[in-house]
């Protein structure tokens, strides 16, 4: 599986692609229109790579034909959802065809009796819950990009997000998949069953496979009864240490399982608040926790957030704000969701990291990140999902460093960061994935035998290395 073995997308292949999906849905030989499909949301341009062709199929049958064609012609195919990923999963690192799933955006079926919804991969994640409102049901996935990302990408990356503390990550809710395999066969896995031990758990193999093992064309998701009420607490703390230190107490001492516990250090909340023109008195604070509580009714939620809010004050919070309606709730979650965007404005040269450690190790990890920042003399703002140990530490290029210096020193810094996470029982990615961004660091956290298992699976399903090559590990 090296680049040399791939063939270019010729005019003849492009014509065949047009034949499969229709003229309008193929872009070929037009760099301006192909450019947006050469990158995802990683800030660094060095992670981008131009595709040779873009194809926008409408059905599993079309995708199967495209993959068969690609196998015959030895052209790599990279599936793409909304392109909101953060590890390069949708970047065609070997060129070839980008298979964009934006036209497959139908909600196929809502089945309230079985508590499932079946969707196509191009449905915007947020739309699922909009449509489920009238059924009093909800889908518990909540990636921070939910207003733009596609559910197919969520499944491919096993997206986590803000509500994982209580509800877990995307994979927990996937019960059925229709998949076009790398060689162009269409298979159905799972269904609407709560339990299923029919052989290997191929669904969970597909979940998080980053588009390397199959293209999802139908996704069945388990739903839950919609919590009737929820409230968010925005807690200001004097320092990171105090804020992070309060998390174990909140998790274990209140008898309430919060839906989310998000952490923002001083730099992150300042960047986001300034970006949004937000007037929360963040300047006096050193860190923030954003905690969500949901429940069956307003009274239960009030009891829940009272306990958690009191615990925060006991642990040294400077102030606890409460948002219990759509206006205020959206206002404070916007602060959290805007951090990544705000940082890109502060400096385009940064590396959004995604380390995850067991929750009891969070204070030690946070302290270690601060020590690394000091050692390297750069800012490493840190935010993320404190309730599940997933911290988005984000090294930002020091203004006095040249770009060369940045590219030279970043790998060493990341190695130190990842080693620290690993030494605490953590790993290099909790929810963004490996892609091509982190694959060279995989040996830091996975034994050679484990990587060999992954390679064996990839080779068995994709003998020609057609589907999303160059991701997760080298062949």
């Amino acid at each position, binding site marked *: 599986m090296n680049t040399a073995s791939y063939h270019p997308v010729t005019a003849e292949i492009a014509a065949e692609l047009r034949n499969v999906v229709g003229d309008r849905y193929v872009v070929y030989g037009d760099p301006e229109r192909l450019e947006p499909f050469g990158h995802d949301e990683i800030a660094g341009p060095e992670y981008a790579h131009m595709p040779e062709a873009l194809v926008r199929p409408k059905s599993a049958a079309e995708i199967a034909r495209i993959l068969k064609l690609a196998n015959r012609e030895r052209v790599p195919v990279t599936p793409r959802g909304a392109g909101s990923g953060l590890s390069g999963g949708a970047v065609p690192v070997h060129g070839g065809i980008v298979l964009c799933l934006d036209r497959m955006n139908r909600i196929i079926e809502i089945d309230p009796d079985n508590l499932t919804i079946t969707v196509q991969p191009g449905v915007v994640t947020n739309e699922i819950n909009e449509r489920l409102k009238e059924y009093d049901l909800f889908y518990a996935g909540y990636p921070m990009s939910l207003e733009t990302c596609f559910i197919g990408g969520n499944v491919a990356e096993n997206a986590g997000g803000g509500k994982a503390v209580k509800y877990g990550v995307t994979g927990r809710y996937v019960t059925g998949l229709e998949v076009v395999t790398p060689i162009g066969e269409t298979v159905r896995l799972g269904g609407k069953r709560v339990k299923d031990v029919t052989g290997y758990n191929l669904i969970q193999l597909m979940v998080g496979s980053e588009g390397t093992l199959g293209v999802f064309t139908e996704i069945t998701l388990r739903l839950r009864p919609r919590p009737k009420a929820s409230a968010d607490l925005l807690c200001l703390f004097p320092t990171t240490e105090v804020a992070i230190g309060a998390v174990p107490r909140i998790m274990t001492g209140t008898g309430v399982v919060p839906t989310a516990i998000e952490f923002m250090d001083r730099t992150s909340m300042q960047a986001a608040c300034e970006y949004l023109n937000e007037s929360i008195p963040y300047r006096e604070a050193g860190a923030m926790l954003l905690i969500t509580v949901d429940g069956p009714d307003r009274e239960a939620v009030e009891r829940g957030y009272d306990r958690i809010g009191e615990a925060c004050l006991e642990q040294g919070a400077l102030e606890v704000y*409460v948002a219990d*309606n759509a206006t205020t709730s959206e206002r404070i979650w916007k602060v959290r969701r805007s951090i990544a965007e705000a940082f890109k404005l502060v400096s385009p040269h940064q590396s959004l990291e995604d380390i995850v450690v067991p929750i009891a190790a969070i204070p030690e990890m946070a302290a270690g990140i601060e020590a690394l920042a000091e050692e390297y003399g750069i800012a490493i703002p840190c935010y993320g999902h404190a309730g599940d140990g997933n911290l988005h530490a984000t090294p930002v290029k020091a203004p006095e460093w040249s770009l060369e210096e940045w590219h030279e020193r970043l790998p060493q810094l990341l190695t130190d960061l990842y080693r620290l996470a690993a030494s605490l029982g953590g790993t290099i990615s909790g929810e963004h994935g490996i892609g091509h961004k982190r694959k060279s660091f995989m040996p830091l956290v996975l034994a050679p035998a484990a990587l060999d298992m992954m390679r064996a699976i990839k080779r068995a399903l994709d003998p020609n290395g057609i589907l999303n090559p160059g991701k997760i590990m080298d062949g």
Partner: protein
Amino acid sequence: MRIAVLIKQVPESSSVRIDPETGTMVRSGVEAVVNPLDLYAIEVALMIRERNGGEIVALSMGPPAAESALREAVSMGIDAAVLAADRRFAGSDTWCTGYVLAAALRKLGPFDLILCGERATDGDTGQVGPGVAAFLDLPVATYVSNVPDFGPGLCRVDRLTEDGYEHLEVQLPAVLTVVKEAASPRLPTLRGKQRARNAEIAILRAEDLDVDLDRIGLKGSPTRVVRTFQPKVTRQCRRLPARDDAEIELAADQVIEFLRQRNLL
């Protein structure tokens, strides 16, 4: 200083749907919130109190459920809340609403200052604030964009207009409607929420007020909705090619000319 803030409970606007048959808003099952623009009036009141001391009373007219909007105001720091709630108020238009609120203010008064949001996000008229001023025979300044400061018997306000700002001195007592620019609303604190939960919301009924029963509610409202419809939006789009420098130059000139002709430049 005694300040009254008039607030309205409205459906949360992102979840509002319009019934295509009747053309009216579907309110059932939609979350109710404090009219977002009223939050700015609440914040201005709180900032005045922080600087000048005094007491703030929030007043709303609405169904019993509007109590939760008043509790939100209390949780932000308002001292007392009063709800004018009576079946006989139901269906009031902006004229009747102003009439009832004015009567309630007379009953609860005297006030030095009455603050309102610019308009409610559901009805969108912006008439109730000025209406209240008319019924109480008080001066009114609309679109106030600052936290007023005070002189003897007067307040100084900036009024946002299409062309800029007016700086006014307004004799007190007065009614002010404020715009977003004036202040950024604070979030309720945990302590504020706990206080609001136990706060007593006083209820005013029609008989508590000096109002003519024939002039309130649907039957007292002079406004008649004859027909509602959604305006047809027609946009005529002209595309200007700009493939090379010469075309870009030409297109830019055409855009400038287009805007000039419409007095937009």
